[in-house]
């Protein structure tokens, strides 16, 4: 149960959307697929699913090209664009068609509808669904065949807070059951809680392919922010640590923890006014990684 991407390349005229991309997605893990807008995440996923034709290279699912699968829903579940459905069908009819195509018993349709919390809207036409409901319908479709490999393209879009929490739990439990889960996002913070591994791309090229922990460590994450009226004394007590002075009374300590800094300050008798770990460091690290690779930067 793996996804193997090898030398995958896709050009649209002059635009190289995906550029010689290679990576593996392994079973039992949630792999975050990260990159700024236009990095080529959706294009990569469409090629993995045999929807778009690669200019070069290949993508294999469970050792075979997706387009060769006879009952793909039983092997690979995927949610790309949740709005790409016929609005005139009911949610239930949509999934019944899906079940028919892959020889899945239609009883399974009601099961997944209940699993994503859509049972009350199941007999309504999709044109009346909100974005979050369409997102849930797409997830139901991905789960329909109980597949070992799952791909989700920005599944958090349009979901409310409960929905976000639900999908994080879902991704986690899918991976814990031994499945292979690839989930794309343009925000690091979205995947850092759930992903075991991250594949980062920018302008279609691979930037990083590593575990989430390694990415954080390698990028000097976990900065402790501390404020004290006796900054010099604290600086002395933190000898041997990587410390940056951020102001008269503020220090940033890298590769440490608030517990450690607090203990050291206490031992040195230095009063503290503020002690926290900077959550955003990973986001910043990600921005630092992809900064050069941003396709569409805002101006002004």
């Amino acid at each position: 149960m793996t996804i193997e991407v090898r030398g995958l390349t896709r050009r649209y005229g002059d635009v190289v959307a995906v550029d010689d991309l290679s990576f593996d997605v392994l079973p039992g893990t949630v792999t975050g697929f990260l990159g700024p807008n236009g990095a080529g995440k959706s294009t990569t996923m469409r090629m993995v699913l045999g929807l778009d034709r690669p200019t070069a290279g290949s993508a294999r699912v469970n050792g075979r090209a997706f387009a060769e699968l006879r009952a793909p829903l039983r092997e690979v579940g995927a949610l790309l664009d949740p709005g790409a459905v016929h609005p005139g069908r009911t949610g239930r009819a949509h999934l019944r068609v899906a079940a028919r195509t892959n020889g899945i018993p239609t009883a399974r349709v009601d099961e997944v509808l209940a699993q994503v919390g859509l049972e009350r809207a199941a007999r309504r036409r999709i044109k009346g669904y909100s974005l979050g409901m369409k997102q849930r319908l797409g997830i139901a479709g991905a789960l329909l065949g109980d597949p070992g490999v799952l791909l989700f393209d920005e599944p958090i879009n349009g979901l409310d807070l409960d929905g976000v929490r639900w999908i994080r739990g879902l991704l986690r439990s899918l991976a814990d059951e031994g499945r292979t889960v690839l989930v794309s996002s343009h925000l690091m913070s979205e995947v850092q809680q759930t992903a075991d591994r991250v594949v980062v791309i920018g302008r279609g090229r691979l930037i990083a392919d590593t575990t989430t922990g390694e990415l954080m460590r390698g990028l000097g994450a976990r900065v402790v922010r501390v404020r004290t009226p006796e900054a010099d004394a604290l600086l002395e007590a933190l000898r041997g640590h990587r410390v940056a002075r951020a102001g008269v009374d503020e220090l940033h300590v890298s590769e440490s923890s608030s517990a450690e800094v607090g203990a050291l300050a206490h031992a040195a008798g230095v009063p503290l006014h503020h002690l926290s770990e900077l959550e955003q460091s990973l986001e910043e690290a990600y921005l630092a990684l992809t900064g050069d690779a941003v396709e569409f930067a805002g101006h002004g």
Partner: protein
Amino acid sequence: MGELFARTCAAEWTRLWSVRSTWWFLAAAWAMMHGIALMAGVSTAGQPDPPVGDPAWGIAPIVVLPAQFALLAVAVTAVTAEYATGGIVPTLQWTPRRSVLFWARVVVTTAVATVLGVAFAFTCGLVGWVAARPILDLEGAGVLGTVAFVLLAGTLLSVGLGFLLRSTAGGLVGVFLLLLVLPALLPQFGYEWLTEIADVLPGTSAIFLLTEEPSGRGLTERGSVVLMLVWAVGALAGGWARLVRDDAG
């Protein structure tokens, strides 16, 4: 192959019937055909010199001529609505073998449009027969075979155009132009070469098969059948090639 094709056809069947446009177009075809049949029957009965003993089935080609477009619209939209809505993306995710999807869609939509069209034409003959009683006869139902062929070839052409053009407007306009507008319009200009073009359009063949008009242009039944099949096969080949080779949507 057999089992995969069978379940793909089953899914196509559900797909076709689970959208309202199918029902609307079929209802329109039904109403148009039976309305015309009723009027034709009544006016036959009211003629001062009624055509006693003519087959009632003669009504069938007359009602099919205009109403075929509602049936062909079912076929066109069965294909193009998926491109307009993006529904082709999940469709190809579920059936990534594109030739399988193609042939399942061709078979199901063609069968539905043709079988229902012929069934409607049959009841139209009965309606006309009842309305004109006792003037018309129920002999000579063979014309229903011609109706079946014209609908079959027309639906194949429509499905092919749908896959080729990927647009509802484009598909419907294409079907109208080839089957109705150009065959009727081109000969009006009086240039021989325009009439010759009209003679190789599928609509001229369809009209000739249904009505034996226009006469005097050297059209034959066999030639018309071949020509319609050539157009149908050409459109299918083009549609298949685009589906199999291009990106999904």
